[in-house]
Every structure is written in C-alpha cells, then in structure tokens.
C-alpha cells in the first residue's frame, strides 16, 4: 500500500504527515501526531470518544480517513485550552464533577463546544440530543448536562 502525504492544520498549527490509504484520522492523530486526547472506544462511530471537528463539523475521527484531512482545519480537545487558561466548558466539567473516569470527556467537550457555537442557549433536551452520540458509562449524564448549561450561561454573559 503506497503512503499518502497529507498537509493539514490541527488546532491552528500546520501539520504534515504520511499515512496509509486505509488509515483513520483518529489513528493519524494518535499515532503520528501524538495527540492522544481523542480516544478509540469502538472504532465504529457509536461512542463518540474520538470526536473532533473537521472544518468546524463535528465528526467521529474513527470514521474519517486521515487522507481526508488534506487542506482541512482540525480541532481536538488539546486545542480547547488557551494560554489564558481552560475553556469555560473544561472548567465547568471540573467544577460540576461531570467526569468520573474521564475517558469520554475529551469527545464530550469537543461535541459540547460544537453545540454551543451553533446554539448558545440550548434547552436540556437539546443538550441531551446533541450529546446522544457520546457515550458516558460513569455519570448517568446528569452532571454533564448541568456542566454544559453552566458553561453556556457563563459564555453568554461573557
């Protein structure tokens, strides 16, 4: 299998990498770029632990080919905190104990950020349906919904 050379942008940084034609974006992020924040929970797009955005669109990176990243803008959990500190969602997840084991947290944070960019004032039901593609087995989602709403309120008042 011949390799493919890919030029892309990840969390604002230019990145060049080489991948195989059947390689997933998730594997390229984790194994070639060392960005292990996105997790593989299933490899079939059912759990959302590998959520990233590709040109602003929320995707399961296990279902995207690495070669599709050519010329794209990718955002992962590693890009959420800035030099000024944590993103309001990240802070809210800690303050509201919205994580237990934390392995679904990167994907949920990326998905929640994408939600709030589209809908800064979601209802609880809208939060729950938006996050229905992100499995969390520890929390029962209660504190996750509360954390997303707290961050949304903070971001609206900022």
């Amino acid at each position, binding site marked *: *299998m011949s390799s493919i050379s890919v030029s892309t942008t990840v969390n604002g940084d230019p990145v060049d990498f080489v991948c*195989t034609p*059947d390689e997933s974006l998730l594997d390229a992020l*984790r194994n070639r770029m060392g*960005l*292990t*924040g*996105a*997790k*593989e*929970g*299933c*490899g*079939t797009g*059912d*759990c959302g*632990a590998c959520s990233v955005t590709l040109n602003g669109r929320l995707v399961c990176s296990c279902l995207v080919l690495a070669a599709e990243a050519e010329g794209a803008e990718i955002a*992962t*959990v*590693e890009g*959420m*905190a800035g030099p000024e500190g*944590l993103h309001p969602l*990240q*802070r809210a*997840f*800690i*303050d*509201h*104990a919205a*994580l*237990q*084991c*934390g*392995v*679904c*947290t*990167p994907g949920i*944070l990326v998905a929640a950020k994408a939600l709030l960019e589209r809908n800064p004032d979601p209802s*609880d*039901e809208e*939060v*729950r*349906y938006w*996050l*229905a*593609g*992100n*499995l*969390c*087995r*520890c*929390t*029962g*989602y*209660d*504190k*996750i*919904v509360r954390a997303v709403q707290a961050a949304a309120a903070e971001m609206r008042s900022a």
Partner: protein
Amino acid sequence: MAFDSHEKRVFKQVGTRPPRPDGVDKVTGRAQYGADVTAPGMLTARILRSPHAHARIVSIDTSEAEAMAGVKGVVTGRDFALPEDAGLADIAVNVMARDKALYDGHAVAAVAAVSPAIAKAALKAIKVQYEVLPHVTDVDAAMQPGAPVVLEGRALESVPAGMSVNVTHASEFGHGDLAAGFAKADRIVERSFKTAATHQGYIEPHACLASVTVDGKADLWCCTQGQFMVRTVCAALMGMEASQLRVTASEIGGGFGGKTTVFIEPVALVLARKTGRPVKITMTRDEVFRATGPTVSTSIDVKIGMTKDGRITAGEARLRYSGGAFPCGTVDMGAMAAFAAYDLEAVRTQGWNALTNRPKEAAYRAPGAPQAIYAVESVVDELCQILKLDPLDVRIRNAAKKGTKSSYGPVFDDIGLLATLEAAKAHPHYKAPLKPGQARGVSCGFWFNFGGNTCVSLNVNTDGTVGVTEGNPDIGGSRASISLMAAEELGIPYDKVRTIVADTASLGYNDVTDGSRVTFSVGLATIAAARDAKTKMCARAAKIWGIDEEAVEWKDGAAWPAGPNAGQFPPMSLAEIAAVSFQTGGPIAGHHEVNADGAGVSFGVHLCDLEVDPETGKTTILRYSVFQDAGKAVHPDYVEGQMQGGAVQGIGWALNEEYIYGRDGRMQNPGFLDYRVPVASDLPMIEAVILEIPNPGHPYGVRGVGETPIVPPLAAISNGVSRAVGVRMQELPLSPPRVLKAIKAA
C-alpha cells in the same frame, strides 16, 4: 478501625466539593489511559479468536504467519504456564485456549508484528483446525441432564450428586421454619424470572504495553482496577517472581468490576519475552464484548408469603446463575443478597452455578445482587398490588435494622435502610401525582461492601505540603476523597496534599479497586497514616521543646503543649516542624498497612416514574430518584456521581442491554450499536439524595457507595412497567418487543 464516636466531630474539609486533582489532565486530553502509552521499538499484537461457541482445537499451524515479513512472534496456549491453583489456571486458559475453545471469541493465538496492519494480516495466515462440539448458552438448558458438557470434573463438594456435569457450585442460606411461615401468610406469590447477561460497558477497551529484558525484568503498563492483582496473576502465568515484574496502572477509562482480572496482559508479556521488544495490545470493541466482562445470566424462582396487613411471613428463592465457561461463585452473592433488606423469621435461598459456552464472568457492580434482588422485589411489589398496600409502607414494615439477623447469617449493626425508606416516602417525588398511563416503581437495593488489604504512605515535605501514596487506581474521583481525608486529619488545606497512585514496586500490596472499598479502606489507611505522621511530628516538637512526647498533642494543624503542665511554648505548625525535620531526626512520614474489615453494609431505595408506549412497547423514564446511605459523604459530588451512574447502568440493564446469542452460539450484538447502553437523550436528571448514618467501622463513618446503586433499578423499572401495562413482567431486559408481546398477550 472504630468510628471516632468520642469526638463530636465538625468536619472542616470532608463533605466539601473541591475540584479533583486529576481534573485538568482529564479535561485537556493530557491524562494517559491504557492505549495512550508507547515505547521505542514497540510491536503491536493482535489476537486470533474462536469463531465457534465450543470446539476442540485439533491443530494450530502458525508457520505461514511466522514467515511473514514484519511478524516477530506468534504464541498459542502452549506458550503459557498452567498454574496449579485452579482459579489462576482458569484465568490462564481464559487468556489463551488450550485443547478447547470454550466460547465465541475465546483467544486461540496471538501475533506481534511491526505494524497493526501486518499483525492483522498475519492472523489470517494462522490455520486452526477445529472440531465443532455441541454448545449450550442458556443456564436452564445447561442444567438439564444430557446438556452439552462445557468442562468436566469442576463441581465443588457442595454440589449434590445427580446434577448436570455443568453445575459447579451450590449454596444455601437462611433460617427459620419456611412451612410454618408460609402457613401464616394470607397470600403467597410464586414467580420465575430470567435476566440477560450484560456487559460493564466501560468506554475504554482493555489496553496494555509490556516490556521484558533479557535478564528477566519486566514492566507492564495497563488499564486495570488493580495493578497488584495483575502482578500476582501475570507473575504466576509467566513463572516470574513478583519483584521482577513492575506493573503501573494507567488512568482507567471505566471498569465497574470488569477490569479486576487479566485478559491481554499475559499475552503481551509472553510476546515481549519471546520477541525481545516492547509489545502493545489494544482490544477492539468487538473483542471487549465477546471475550471480557459480562455478568452472569440468571434464572430465578421466588416465593413469598405475606399477611394482608403487609408482614412478610416467609421468603424462598432458588437461583440458577451461569458465569460462562468457567466455575463462578457469584451465585453465592445473589443467594446471600436476595432477602437482605428484610427482617424475616423464615427465609431460605438456594443457588447453583452452571457452566455455559459464554465468556468468563467478570465482576460488575454488586456482582450477583441485582438479579436476585430484582426477582425478590418484583414479587414483593406484586403482593403489594394484590393486597392493595403501599409498596414503601410494606418495605418499612419489614425492613432490616440494627439487631436484625440477616437472611445470610450475620446480625446487622447500624444500617441505613429505614432512613432511606423514610426519606423516599417523605420526598416530593413519592407524593407527585401520576398522569394516566404513567406508573411508579419502587425497589430496595443492598450490597455487602468490602475492606481488604490496603497500604498507604504519607510523606511530609519540608515545605509543609504532603504527598499521599496509595495503590488503587482512581476510577471515579478517589484521589480527591483521599486528599480530603488526609487534609482533614492533618489540619492543612486540601490543595497542600497531592495523592498519587503508585506502581507495584513503590508500595505494599493493595487489593483491587472493587467492593466499594477504596474511599472506605484507603481512606481509613490514609487517616491512620496521617495519625502516625502526627505522632511523629508531636515527637519532633517535644524534642525541640525539651519535653516528653506524651506532653504534646496535635490540633488544628499544629503541635501544642498538652495542658498547662507541659510548659509554655507557641504551637508549631506542620510546615514549621517539617522545615526543621532534617535537624530533628530526618524526613517525616506516616504509614499504615491493614486488612480492613468493618466496611459496613449499604442500602438504597430507588423511585422511578415511567410510561410505556402501548404501540411500540418502548419505556420512557420520566423521573428518577436515588436514596442511599453513604455513612459520611467525603466528596458529595462523587458520591452523587456513583449513585447517578450506577442507577443509569441499572436502567440500561432493565430496559435495553443483553447478550444476544444465535443458534450457532455466537454473540450477535458485539458493538455499541446493537448492545445499547443508555445515551443522554434516553434519560431524565437523576436526583441523588444522600443519607449519612455513620458506619461504626470507619473513623469518619464512611461507607462504600459504588455498587448498591446498580441494584434497585432492575426491579424499580420492572415494577413500574408491570403496573403501567397491567402485566407482571418476568424477564429482563424490558426491550420494546418483549413489552409489546406482554401487552398483546394480556
């Protein structure tokens, strides 16, 4: 260690909700889980698994795979030692099949290669010749005479002669005269129930990285609930000494009991030894479902007699559990837990475990209890319906309390069941009116809780900060609660304490993170280690002041002269004593090693409002409340989190989750699309009401809280659905087709 009842303690930090110390790592993607660790020169291994439910392995030809470019090593069952201990031998055979594949997904060979793609291709080049054997996956079928035999000669002495060869365990608990008890009843209900096997469903698949040097030293990094357990088992399977195998627990992406054993770790170690290179194995989700976990599948008969005013006169249960293809004692837990919530004059439970061609059972939150209590609580609910009694009043009337001889033998000390029942009854949820078509389900839950082997070191740093070294992976915020207890005991701020989870070379043995034991047992050891350190710091202050050690006491984070006769000295804070420790005798540390008992049993009560769509049979949970005794909630956020998360796992068990087997004995739904765990849009908020009835066996009164919350949802939901559709449901999960069928048959 007894409860500090002599002190009217006002906690300053325990009971507050500070941010967890590992929070930032976990929200930024920095935390390293099992699959996130790599090593230079690392190989990737993949495992070949049986496509048959039951088959004799006639031959395995690995020559073609071994000859492939990039393949560095291939192993089969022959490469693993078979320990003499039966339990360890079962783990070894589960890790890699020998003469027989015992279930769909059972490992038969593994390949280490320079890339995942080559390892995967090499699996296809391994030729396994199978002789397919008859299989059995249903527990009742496995107990029939003439059922396909999974393993021979594994029955314990307690199993009566004449039972199926597959029956490995038999147990019996209870007391009193059953016949007399049933004779006193105004009404007797007898029902049979079945529950499907479910998977723990942790989002992180098993992953590990092993490295073995030519002089026999090994390092293993893995996601596990217990690095010391991994060391014990792997050392036995590898023929290694414990000191030569260092196991480091990564961050763990959920476990719920499912990571209290090993699957891939010995395979990675054997391949690392064979190839001389570090070897990484990460399971796929398909492998996780087919070869790890699940719970027992069960078939249970329950008979209960009740007077018309709601007094239970006798209770009897027969429990048939299957823990898969290996002997499994989980049925004992079910037989002990079934009637634990009740104060009964006459009670008997009998349990049997039968082998089936399913994966080896692994613990899942309160293993064995949810199924048994579901069956009992369903019959109690039906009696309440028949006799037109309030289901909470009946439970209050019969509740076990301090002094009750439990259904499994021991006499209960202080327990919180009545308090949780009364809190549920007084809660607005129980009084809220239901709309037409809606119903409310109620259930009690119980778990034993566990203490176990625990070892903690507490180091006082010269700048006045403290490091706590403990040996239990932090599965849901335990670093925070351990830090809180250390800070409370020492009288220093929470953020001056850093708690780390040590590898197996850095601390004495610790039992796995299970049995709801960590906040209780590690907490107890942390408090004792802090008291040890305080004693030493008092001695240092005494030395500085030139007075007797006994004349110094610790309060409010400082050493003080104890009373006017000790002399007039200004108090020395922890930081002041630590700063001069090199001049007063050297570094200061506290330690505690214990095999802790006194864990204190745990009870909870759940209320669930729901409605059932009569056209589809789909159940919607409308409102859900959890009431549970935490003894003392050290970090209430994470206590609530256990109650909410456990409840939702129980909701999944009640409504959707099940291992589905085809006629070929293969699992038909080994993925999250078809094995449906609850998603956010399935659920309402889960209200968690914490009660605090101090556990007499812990200095702060702490009880474990992790397991009990998965117990009540099964019956609470089934009772609600049964009331909503007017048919007593007797099988889980209550998937829409099953409920629809019941509605149509009524």
